């Protein structure tokens, strides 16, 4: 794996033991930072990369986002969860300049970002993916990937005319893209049009392409919805790698297994507001979160017995219903 950010951190990543050691340090550092932190919404982080204040977005009578204060810790993996329609995607839209907030300010790396157009946000190092994927249909998968790379010499009109200017850089980009594609199991689709990918593959491409940008903060909107579990698992490893390379990850996800597995910190949104924050383990036992979001089986997937019981209940209910009907 060679990433922009990589050089700063580990240089050559072939050395496995070193790698493992680094992994440990990063993760430990993140956990250390969160250890004594208060579990309340809007709590201050020691080294926030993103600080959001009073962001409001209304659609007609509906307040989709109303976030008082929230901070995202640098170098950590933060999950953003919440019921459907809580405003997570809308919140992303505000932060990344795809929609204009009715009110509010936020800073990224200390730089004010409100009102900054989307492409400048991305250039500043804050890159997002879309929940409803946006594959560039009539570009090949590889071209999709290459497009993600930043500071391409060949993207300026005049230099584009002289291939000599950008050939070597293109070569580099392609190599990087190839590595990512292998990781995301898309290498076989390298030269196919992105428009011919399946739903899950699009999700994968969307994420891989965002990583090509080499962002400081990557914001993933339900990256794993529709991705098959085995692949999800291997990609989680990759996301953890990213953290080790110094990248900050903020992601929205409904898959609690995944949240539990990789996130260092969880932020919970409901009805537009942040209602809770904390490490995954605590959050998942928070009453409010269970109520609003997790429902009955918050800790682990249903065991077979539970399942049977549930099924039984359902059956009983159904029978009662049928009876009722017949009685009418």
């Amino acid at each position, binding site marked *: 794996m060679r990433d922009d950010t990589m050089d700063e951190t580990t240089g050559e990543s072939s050395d496995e033991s070193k790698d493992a050691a680094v992994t440990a340090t990063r993760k430990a550092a993140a956990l250390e930072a969160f250890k004594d932190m208060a579990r309340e919404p809007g709590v201050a982080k020691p080294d926030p990369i993103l600080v959001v204040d009073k962001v409001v977005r209304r659609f007609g009578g509906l307040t989709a986002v109303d976030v008082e204060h929230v901070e995202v810790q640098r170098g950590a993996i933060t999950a953003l969860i919440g019921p459907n329609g809580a405003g997570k995607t809308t919140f992303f839209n505000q932060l990344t300049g795809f929609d204009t907030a009715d009110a509010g300010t936020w800073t990224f790396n200390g730089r004010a970002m409100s009102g900054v157009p989307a492409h400048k946000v991305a250039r500043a190092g804050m890159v997002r993916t879309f929940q409803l994927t946006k594959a560039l249909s009539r570009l090949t998968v590889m071209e999709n990937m290459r497009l993600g790379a930043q500071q391409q010499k060949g993207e300026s009109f005049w230099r584009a005319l002289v291939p000599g200017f950008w050939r070597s850089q293109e070569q580099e980009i392609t190599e990087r893209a190839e590595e990512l594609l292998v990781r995301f199991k898309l290498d076989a689709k390298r030269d196919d*049009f992105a428009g011919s990918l399946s739903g899950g593959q699009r999700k994968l491409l969307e994420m891989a392409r965002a990583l090509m940008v080499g962002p400081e903060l990557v914001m993933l909107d339900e990256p794993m919805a529709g991705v098959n579990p085995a692949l999800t698992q291997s990609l989680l490893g990759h996301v953890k790698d990213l953290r080790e390379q110094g990248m900050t990850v903020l992601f929205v996800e409904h898959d609690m297994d995944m949240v539990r597995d990789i996130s260092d910190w969880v932020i919970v949104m409901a009805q537009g507001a942040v209602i809770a924050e904390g490490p995954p383990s605590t959050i998942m036992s928070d009453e409010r979160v269970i109520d609003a979001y997790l429902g009955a089986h918050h800790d682990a997937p249903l065991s077979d017995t539970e399942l049977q019981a549930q099924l039984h209940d359902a059956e009983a209910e159904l029978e009662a219903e049928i009876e009722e009907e017949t009685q009418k």
Partner: protein
Amino acid sequence: MDWLTIFTTTVHAAIGWETVVYGLAAIGVNIHFGYTGLLNFGQAAFMAVAGYGLAVTVTVLNLPFWVGIFVGLGAAVLLALLMGIPTLQLRADYLAIVTIAAAEIIRLIFRSVQFKGVFGGSDGRRGFNGDFYAMNPYPEGRYGIGPIVFDERTLWLLTVGWIVVLLACGLVYLLMKSPWGRVLKAIREDEDAVRALGKNVFAYKMQSLVLGGVVGCFGGFFYGLYNGAVQPDVFGTEMTFFAYTIVILGGAARVFGPVVGAMIFWVLFVFIGNLLAELVANGYIPFMTSIQVGPIRYALVGLGFILLLIVRPQGIFGDKREIAIDAR
């Protein structure tokens, strides 16, 4: 039946000035629409401002030919900027109507009595091609092989015209192969995705609009130079439509698509017209008068395009796979 005339006029059309003019217009449209997905239905306006820029500079301001060329080019760039700043924010279908409207506004202004002193009203301007033919290196005479001959004036125009066409094709080839071209193609697919990857979509669209406009404006120059006149009504929406037809015939987003499309278009046009006229003149089609040849010719040309596009919806050079991907 005068087969020889039918044959020679058809061959003339294939390499003649119409092909040069419409080919250039179509190359411009191909940059806008084929590569960037901009539904610019105002291509005729670029040609008009170029033709008028040259004509007015030379005939009204009495400045030399080269100044006229630069004024024409400048006018095209200016038009692209004026048209682009408000419209490039719009969705594709809205862009289409706004550009048609802009082109019509320009045509109406050119033909208006108000500005008759400058643009010459509906009769346009004549008499500005002297300097161009003064540069003609070919001595007087007729050039060609067999029955396909050009006089020295036409030959000179075609020489310059085809050089410009080939240069334009080369430019398009170089650009579209480069990362710059990749960004354009990506914008065609989904702007938001490109924005999310940190590219300034507006700037690229503007560059594309200017470039396509400038290439198209050479079509306007050659129209004026060949006919020795520019008239407002020539630059109507029909001209733009034809340019689009040519692009689709040749295959959108293909370097040589527009050129080959233009050849087919004019060959079809001239061949059908002349064949029909000959048939009628020689009494092979007794129920038709020569006056009815005009409409039937156009009708058949229309039919020809329909059939060609039904047989090869992707155009001559197009990729069937690309068409099959639903871009919606």
